[in-house]
């Protein structure tokens, strides 16, 4: 399990990264944390001719926030997001999701951008990006574009990123009201890829009615998926257990799960609903209890 040969380039700026990408064309791959890419190279499932290392590109690391969004630069390590008080304060669902991402050792290397670009349909961070309508900021060195997360993921391991583009940052919109969030997944062992996962974030008005809802599930379709029918069903209503339960079942009609080694399509379809219910219940409890931190 040794990687096929390649040329290695150590980039120090985004400009340099983009120049190398355009020089080497489709045979080039960016390496950030390498936690997904290197196993694929070891198994020779991918054989990049050139590897462009962005670990030393300082401008690709960092966490900032404005009134509107939390911006995490692409090569920011998951372990740094985990301990960021900015993230804890402004976008706590990211921490709830990170709890399920691999293990502390893989989070010590793994990056947000790496997880986004790898586009595993069961990955947690892409799920949160879809949930919150995050924006993926990409550049080819001259033009910087913004791709909505809901349009970024096209298929398993396939994104809208063009070969000459690299991800610069992801912007997660902030919610300012009386909000709460929840994240649930089922996996065979702690730290495994999710068989199915669900994330929810809601906002209540002073009367306890749901005025904003975002629901997404992962591991059950080719990409992480927003479940609009559930969101629609919850709006303007007080969120009783029954209402949550009834709405959660709508996930089954939106998703399109597959059979694989770990679970059947039927399992994923039904468990996705259960996980949505649990995530919504947590989100509601958090928002209603005033402990909501998804501000």
């Amino acid at each position, binding site marked *: 399990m040794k990687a096929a040969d390649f*040329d290695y380039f150590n980039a120090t700026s985004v400009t340099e990264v983009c120049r190398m990408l355009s020089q080497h064309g489709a045979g080039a791959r960016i390496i950030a944390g390498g*936690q997904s890419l*290197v196993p694929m190279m070891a198994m020779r499932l991918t054989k990049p001719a050139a590897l462009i290392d962005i670990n030393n590109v300082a401008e690709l690391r960092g966490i900032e926030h404005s009134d509107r969004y939390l911006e995490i630069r692409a090569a920011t390590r998951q372990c740094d997001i985990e301990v960021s008080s900015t993230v804890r304060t402004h976008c706590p669902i990211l921490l709830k999701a990170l709890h399920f991402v691999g293990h502390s050792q893989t989070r010590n290397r793994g990056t947000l951008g790496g997880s986004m670009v790898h586009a595993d349909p069961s990955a947690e961070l892409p799920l949160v990006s879809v949930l919150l309508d995050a924006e993926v900021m990409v550049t080819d060195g001259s033009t910087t574009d913004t791709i909505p997360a809901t349009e970024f993921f096209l298929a398993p391991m396939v994104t809208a990123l063009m070969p000459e583009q690299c991800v610069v940052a992801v912007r997660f919109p902030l919610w300012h009201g009386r909000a709460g969030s929840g994240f649930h997944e089922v996996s065979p062992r702690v730290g495994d890829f999710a068989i199915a996962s669900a994330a929810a974030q809601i906002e209540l008005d002073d009367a306890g009615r749901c005025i904003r809802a975002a629901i997404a599930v992962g591991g059950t379709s080719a990409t992480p998926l927003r479940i609009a029918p559930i969101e629609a069903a919850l709006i303007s209503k007080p969120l009783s257990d029954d209402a949550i339960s009834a709405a959660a079942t709508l996930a089954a009609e939106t998703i399109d799960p597959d059979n694989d080694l770990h679970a059947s399509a039927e399992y994923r379809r039904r468990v996705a609903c259960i996980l949505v219910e649990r995530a919504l219940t947590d989100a509601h409890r958090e928002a209603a209890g005033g402990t909501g931190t998804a501000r």
Partner: protein
Amino acid sequence: MSHHEITLRVNGTSRTAVVPARMTLVDFLRDELRLTGTHVGCEHGICGACTVQFDGKPIRSCLMFAVQAQGHDITTVEGLSGAEGALSALQEAFCENHALQCGYCTPGMLVAAQALLDACPDPSDDAIRDALSANICRCTGYVQIIEAVRLAATRLRARSGTDKEVGGG
């Protein structure tokens, strides 16, 4: 295809070498530096036998290329012992509790556990489990490992007087 000269610190000593781009960090440590205490178990990042500390944080050395370690600080199991081979508190606790059998996963387990103790002198059992969840042991069933980490933490706290300070607050 490309070769690169790298300089890095390994267990406190500066090392320079020319490596092919595709050589993994674990192969570099084992085959070039002959630091064979770090082991290879799966080469796809699951088993944890190759765990080393990278700038103080435990990582999989099979999921990095040696060239990426340029300028960084690596600690392997060989770097855990004290002067003249004196065992660290954690190594002592592993021996005392028989927290191993075949010894193959042990170096990775120790490197990961040491990073935990460095960051968190009084870890809960949950914290110990989280810190070691990426290191698979097929021999022990982990129970004696958790006991050993607990024992080492207690001893280290006693040694540094942390217990007293904590007790006062």
